């Protein structure tokens, strides 16, 4: 099972190799992958039909409880078969569709990654591993939407889809983590045991909302639906595969899977039912006015996804059963329709439904596919789409006190979809012949065979529902409601749903025949721009970018002094704050008292005069206009400090300080002799502000010293040890020197390394120009 999932990734790695070997048959060769996967999953069918669940375990990251555990139950198997089956068709289709494209290699790489990830999503039992695959589908979808990446639009759409779906994915991750924390497990099959823990947890609303953000973004639910129509920038096989049949269903899949885990609450019902219903209604209406064949199909897909979501929201065996059938039907007819759209686009060079009609003359097979698929989508008896729609109506009618609402929007949407299906699958082929391209001829076998199969399957599975799809869909239903079962039949007798179906067809036909006035009518409804979520996306996107720019310009403003200022401010805040914040026994005042008492006894004329000199020299350095004066005052300060070192018993320090100070002066002098005088750049106010913050910093230093010296050192063991061993072991009487070359000789090693590198750096910095490189 693991190999099955990984095979896609492995194949992705060798795609370039295969194309190098033989470019012509490579596509066909690669289609063996989904085919064999289909067969692989098909072999589980008997077991599943027998009621078994197959679980395989592979420990991947046990320390994080992330394991590649795969499970095959009815639902998973259904999805796996859809994915690999449609995958096969798409692979084959693309081998002809993209035959001349130079990007066929990346296409197969991306789509293989996608298919593998998708299989991972639908068969993985570990939520975290599932998330891994989930994100991979987003990435591969991104790469595929940006297939024509030379175009700005493609890049925009790709980025948009990625941000929306990956962003949603992160929300999903958050919910998965929190669920994992509460339930203590990441295995989906074990989570339903914690259902009550989860829904009674205080975090439940947040968990649910995060979870739904994840699934809604993937399944293009309002308000995240906008990315899907834009994603039609991708090549048609991609649209057919990812953006109608499989990836967008991943969200739906996950919602069904989590129905027993997070579902069964008011909140669940209202969020899913509400958003799903609204999405269904809105998208189907939007679809009516589309002129681009693919966008038309995309909106109808959104609408169907809304329907599915709504059904999951309504919950209950009936709803889920309806949802499964509806989903299955949709995968078939929408896949077929997309592929016909691809053929039309391929042959006529346009996807604008206003520019094409009567194509059946040249594209007879395609026309057949289109009509069959569209009929299924319209919900015409005896196609599988009809059964799905009947079940939808049935469920909506049974949905309790709000059934009127749900049935109303369901019917309206169904009418819209009816029209849309006709627009996309029937109208292009009938009427007067019209096409921008002159070389319209039937697509090759690789492109038509798959869609034909879909279209026929839609018919067969409808006609013989009870004996074909019944078994597997029943098992799929039972993987959610173990005791439930349904019996699919084309005809349930004359009931309200059938009546509504008839109504749907009638109104739908009116819509179809009056397309122009309908579109005009819809166009008349003026909705302000800011009501559209796609605009929200733009607002949020641009808003984030503007904010990013403002904050970055504010923080990273290029002025060193503001940088230093900020650092100082933070230092004063944190250090000063914690200094004044501590209330242990010895307060600061106490320390001051102790220190002053001790100090005053020791203060003498040197101290005072040094203080005065330092003060004068510093003030002079601050105010001086000449560079040399400033350097001179620096020298004086240095000399004074060495004086302090002498007074307090540090002759080595004093020597070093003096010599370094002199050397510094020389360096400054060598550098500065050509420079102009200082200018006073800043205003008085600025200077006062700077002085205040500098003073605050200086005071913190002063206070810390006073505080520390008032309390004294905790342990003097080190200096005592040095005094004892310096001569006896270290052979030296100058303890400071022995520390420098022996006790802490490695410090000195580092120190001379610093010096050396400084010298090398100075040399390289100043010399490099002369010897070439740049002018």
């Amino acid at each position, binding site marked *: 099972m693991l190999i099955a999932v990984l095979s896609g990734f492995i194949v992705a790695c060798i795609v370039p190799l295969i194309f190098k070997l033989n470019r012509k048959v490579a596509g066909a060769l690669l289609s063996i992958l989904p085919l064999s996967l289909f067969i692989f999953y098909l072999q589980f069918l008997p077991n599943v039909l027998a009621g078994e669940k197959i679980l395989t375990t592979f420990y991947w990251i046990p320390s994080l409880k992330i394991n590649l555990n795969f499970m095959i139950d009815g639902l998973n198997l259904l999805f796996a078969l859809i994915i690999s089956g449609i995958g096969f068709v798409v692979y084959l289709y693309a081998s002809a569709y993209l035959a001349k494209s130079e990007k066929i290699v990346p296409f197969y790489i991306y789509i293989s990654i996608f298919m593998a990830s998708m299989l991972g999503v639908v068969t993985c039992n570990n939520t975290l591993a599932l998330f891994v695959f989930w994100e991979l589908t987003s990435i591969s979808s991104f790469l595929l939407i940006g297939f024509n990446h030379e175009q700005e639009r493609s890049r925009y759409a790709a980025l948009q889809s990625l941000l929306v779906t990956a962003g949603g994915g992160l929300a999903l991750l958050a919910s998965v983590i929190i669920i994992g924390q509460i339930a203590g497990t990441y295995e989906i099959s074990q989570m339903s045991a914690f259902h009550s823990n989860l829904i009674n947890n205080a975090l439940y609303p947040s968990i649910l909302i995060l979870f739904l953000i994840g699934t809604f973004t993937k399944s293009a639910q309002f308000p995240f639906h906008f990315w899907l129509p834009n994603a039609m920038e991708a090549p048609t096989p991609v649209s057919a595969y990812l953006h109608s049949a499989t990836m967008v269903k991943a969200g739906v899949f996950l919602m069904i899977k989590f129905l027993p885990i997070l579902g069964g609450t008011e909140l669940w019902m209202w969020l899913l039912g509400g958003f799903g219903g609204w999405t269904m209604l809105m998208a189907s209406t939007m679809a009516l006015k589309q002129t681009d064949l693919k966008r038309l199909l995309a909106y109808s897909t959104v609408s169907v996804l809304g329907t599915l979501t709504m059904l999951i929201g309504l919950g209950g065996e009936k709803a889920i059963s309806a949802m499964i059938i509806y989903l299955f039907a949709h995968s078939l007819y929408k896949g077929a329709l997309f592929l016909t759209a691809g053929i039309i686009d391929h042959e006529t060079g346009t996807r604008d439904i206003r520019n094409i009609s009567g194509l059946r003359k040249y594209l007879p097979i395609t026309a057949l596919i289109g009509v069959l698929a569209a009929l299924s989508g319209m919900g015409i008896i005896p196609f599988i789409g009809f059964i799905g729609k009947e079940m939808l109506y049935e469920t909506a009618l049974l949905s309790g006190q709000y059934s009127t609402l749900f049935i109303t929007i369901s019917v309206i949407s169904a009418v819209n979809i009816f029209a849309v299906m006709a627009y996309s699958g029937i109208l292009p082929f009938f009427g007067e012949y019209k096409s921008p391209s002159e070389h319209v001829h039937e697509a090759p076998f690789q492109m038509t065979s798959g869609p034909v199969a879909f279209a026929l399957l839609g018919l067969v599975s409808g006609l013989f529902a009870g004996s074909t799809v019944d078994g597997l869909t029943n098992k799929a239903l039972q993987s959610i409601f173990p005791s439930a079962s349904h019996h699919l039949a084309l005809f349930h007798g004359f009931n309200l749903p059938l009546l509504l179906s008839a109504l749907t067809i009638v109104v739908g036909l009116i819509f179809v025949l009056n397309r122009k006035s309908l579109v005009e009518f819809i166009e008349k409804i003026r909705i302000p721009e800011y009501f559209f979520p796609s605009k929200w996306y733009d607002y949020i996107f641009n808003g984030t970018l503007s904010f990013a720019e403002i904050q970055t310009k504010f923080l990273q403003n*290029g002025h060193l002094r503001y940088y230093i200022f900020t650092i100082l401010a933070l230092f004063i805040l944190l250090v000063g704050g914690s200094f004044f914040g501590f209330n242990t026994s010895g307060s600061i005042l106490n320390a001051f008292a102790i220190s002053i008492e001790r100090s005053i006894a020791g203060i003498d004329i040197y101290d*005072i005069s040094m203080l005065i000199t330092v003060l004068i020299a510093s003030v002079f350095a601050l105010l001086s206009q000449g560079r040399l004066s400033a350097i001179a005052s620096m020298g004086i300060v240095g000399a004074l400090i060495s004086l*302090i070192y002498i007074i307090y018993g540090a002759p080595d320090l004093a020597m070093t300080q003096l010599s370094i100070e002199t*050397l510094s002066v020389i*360096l400054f002098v060598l550098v500065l002799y050509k420079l102009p005088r200082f200018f006073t750049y800043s205003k008085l106010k600025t200077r006062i502000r700077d002085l205040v913050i500098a003073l605050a910093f200086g005071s913190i230093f002063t206070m810390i010293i006073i505080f520390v010296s008032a309390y004294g050192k905790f342990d003097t063991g080190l200096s005592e040890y040095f005094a*004892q061993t310096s001569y006896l072991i270290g052979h030296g009487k100058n303890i400071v020197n022995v520390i420098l070359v022996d006790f802490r000789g490695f410090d000195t090693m580092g120190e001379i390394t610093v010096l050396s590198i400084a010298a090398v*750096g100075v040399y390289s910095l100043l010399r490099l120009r002369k010897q070439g490189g740049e002018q």
Partner: protein
Amino acid sequence: MEFVLAIIVGILATSAFYLMLRRSLVKVILGMVFLGNAVNLTIFSVARVTKGLAAFIPENASTLEGTYADPLPQALILTAIVIGFGTQAFAIALFRKAFQKVGDDDLDKMNSTDIMCNEDIPGDK
């Protein structure tokens, strides 16, 4: 004693940062020299300060007894001074080079890497 030293450190640190907040690069580097001094003196002050008694073992003894200035902070400061000198020397050379390139020691004319980050910086090629 520490009290006076503490105030001296305060003065030095204040001057250091006042200088570092200027627009002239030379002043900033001078500020760093001041800061270095303040830092060293701080380390000196917070250790045991004893007037006049350096940590030398007398001629005729092999260990040092009684009170003496703590030698360890002295060694630390020595290291810090020397390192400070190295970095200072580099800073000075850097300043010189920058001055040659920009023709001014005004830091406000040296912020192209932050402000013109989306352009080619003139003088780079």
